[in-house]
């Protein structure tokens, strides 16, 4: 057992304590899924964290190698089930780069609008879960899910499913959006702004919320880069890097929006960055819905029945709600991907957990884990 560090207060001089191992295991409300971390604790201060992952490793990469390029789209939704459209967008663009397909204008706009809406639902899920981690038990979740239900209705009208869409195709989207799509989107952006303001009023100026998140789990920019942390956590640490702006993919270069950047990289900044990103996504959707052509093809005319991209490899990366989501696709000319490597954003963000948690209390370990906003299927794939 590791001895506790040098005691300071008068009471500490006489007593030496032995560190306790607390197992916050796979089935725990704070771990947002099946993640296990063993906290070595001296009194209440966390001395060491040993994360254990792999409880949700179900082989999406191996199974994609035995499926057609279009059939593997289903696994992309299930890898990051809170940002299904973003993952599909990344995979579909990877296949387009290899196969040399060009999606038509209207399909690009539909994709961007749905991907940004999916970012909003994912951030609302974070706000609800983060509130629950900090003791706002029911309220934050019910606010968050009220917004998610509205937006999931739109997803259902467009793609037929609330969570697993499988709607994007290499070269465009599977079928056209319903006729009232534009009105629905305009109504939803208004409703989402009301939801974002409610969540803002509920949590941002709450003293207990600030007391428990300000200065907790600080991650400096150098450590964030060294661990490969990306997305809202990297921006909260002060690094202005958003793939949609720095390496614009799809048609993101046609919209003007700004990526919110935090200052001191603690849990409170991560919360503020994600809340601001909801509003920025709404700005993107407003511009996209104005510029979207009313009718036009949604798939290229001559689309080969059996997609057989040329031999080669590509590492396509997109800005997912959790960070940089990368698809490393190797094709050797067959109808099935030869190797599909999914670089989950939560996988790399989680590797910095130990760095952030040591020195805090046990309750802060839960806050830090909540602020990283992990999705276990993306961590273990």
């Amino acid at each position, binding site marked *: 057992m590791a001895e506790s560090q040098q005691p300071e207060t008068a009471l500490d001089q006489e007593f030496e304590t032995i560190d306790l191992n607390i197992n916050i295991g796979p089935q725990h409300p704070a771990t947002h899924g099946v993640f296990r971390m063993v906290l070595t604790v001296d009194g209440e201060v966390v001395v060491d964290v040993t994360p254990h*992952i792999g409880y949700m490793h179900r082989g999406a990469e191996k199974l994609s190698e035995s499926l057609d390029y279009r059939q593997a789209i289903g696994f992309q939704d299930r890898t990051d089930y809170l940002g299904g459209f973003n993952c599909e967008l990344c995979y579909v663009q990877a296949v387009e780069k290899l196969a040399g397909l060009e999606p038509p204008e209207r399909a690009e706009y539909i994709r961007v609008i749905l991907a940004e809406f999916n970012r909003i639902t994912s951030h609302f899920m974070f706000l609800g879960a983060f509130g629950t981690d900090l003791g706002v038990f029911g309220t934050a979740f019910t606010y968050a899910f009220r917004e998610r239900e509205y937006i999931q209705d739109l997803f259902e009208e467009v793609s037929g499913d609330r969570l697993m869409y499988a709607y994007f195709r290499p070269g465009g989207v599977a079928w056209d959006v319903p006729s009232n799509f534009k009105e629905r989107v305009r109504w939803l952006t208004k409703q989402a702004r009301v939801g974002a303001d409610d969540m803002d009023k509920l949590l941002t100026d709450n003293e207990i919320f600030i007391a428990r998140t300000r200065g907790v789990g600080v991650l400096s920019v150098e450590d964030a880069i060294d661990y*490969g*942390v990306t997305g809202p956590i990297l921006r909260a640490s002060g690094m202005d*890097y958003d793939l949609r702006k720095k390496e614009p993919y799809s048609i993101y270069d046609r919209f003007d929006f700004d990526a919110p950047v935090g200052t001191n990289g603690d849990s409170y900044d991560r919360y503020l960055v994600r809340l601001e990103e909801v509003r920025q996504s709404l700005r993107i959707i407003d511009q996209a819905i104005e510029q979207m052509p009313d009718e036009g093809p949604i798939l290229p005319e001559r689309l080969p029945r059996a997609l057989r991209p040329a031999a080669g*490899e590509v590492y396509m990366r997109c800005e997912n709600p959790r960070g940089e989501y990368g698809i490393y696709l190797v094709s*050797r000319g*067959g109808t099935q991907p030869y190797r599909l490597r999914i*670089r989950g954003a939560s996988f790399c963000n989680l590797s910095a957990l130990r760095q952030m948690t040591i020195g805090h209390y046990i309750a802060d370990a839960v806050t830090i884990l909540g602020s990283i906003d992990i999705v276990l299927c993306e961590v273990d794939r």
Partner: protein
Amino acid sequence: MSPEDRRREQDAPIVPPEPGTIADLFAAALPDLAITPNQGALDVILIVGRDDVPRLLEAAKTDPNLAFDFLRNLSGVDYEAEGIDVVYHLHSYRHGHDVTVKARLPADDLHIKTASTLWRGADWHEREARDMFGVIFDGHPNLVPLLLPDDMDDHFPLRKDNPLAPLEEWQGTALGANVGEAGHIPAGSGFEVEKVEAAPETAETAPEAAETTPEAVEATPEAKE
């Protein structure tokens, strides 16, 4: 010809990138290193021998005008008999350029030096590559299973020779005979369905299946080696 043959002989052609890309910066920084650049779909790919990788990664991280401080992704690709590729995707926040570094490991000697001393993010990527392909990263501080259970360090699921189970059959037998059935009904719960003996006509069509005893099964795996 079956898909395997078509797949095996068609490999990605090496297309030298046009001048002025990252490959020239690397050539300038490491003139004596044998690098064959290749223009991938998005970024430049540098194919390097296994022993030059540590020097190349060291230079990529420390050299001021390369400054690759972000290891995007480290993954393995199994080319069966030809060996296993270890692929590094790097990005530089300062200059904003990207590069992919590839190294081929022979199938019988899967060792390469670790990159976790340069980027701490590489730690988990390397442990996952070891789990999935069996690539040993020398000098890695804590190379224990990450995605597999702690006592399973000789099973590499992502290798091409590890088959996918076609259906429930193979899965069931691996867990023991009685587990193969789906939804077994708890005994004594009053819902059992009495077992009817197999009807005669199915019996003689599979005589050799019926009388295979565990010892016979015991023998067959060795016999196949």
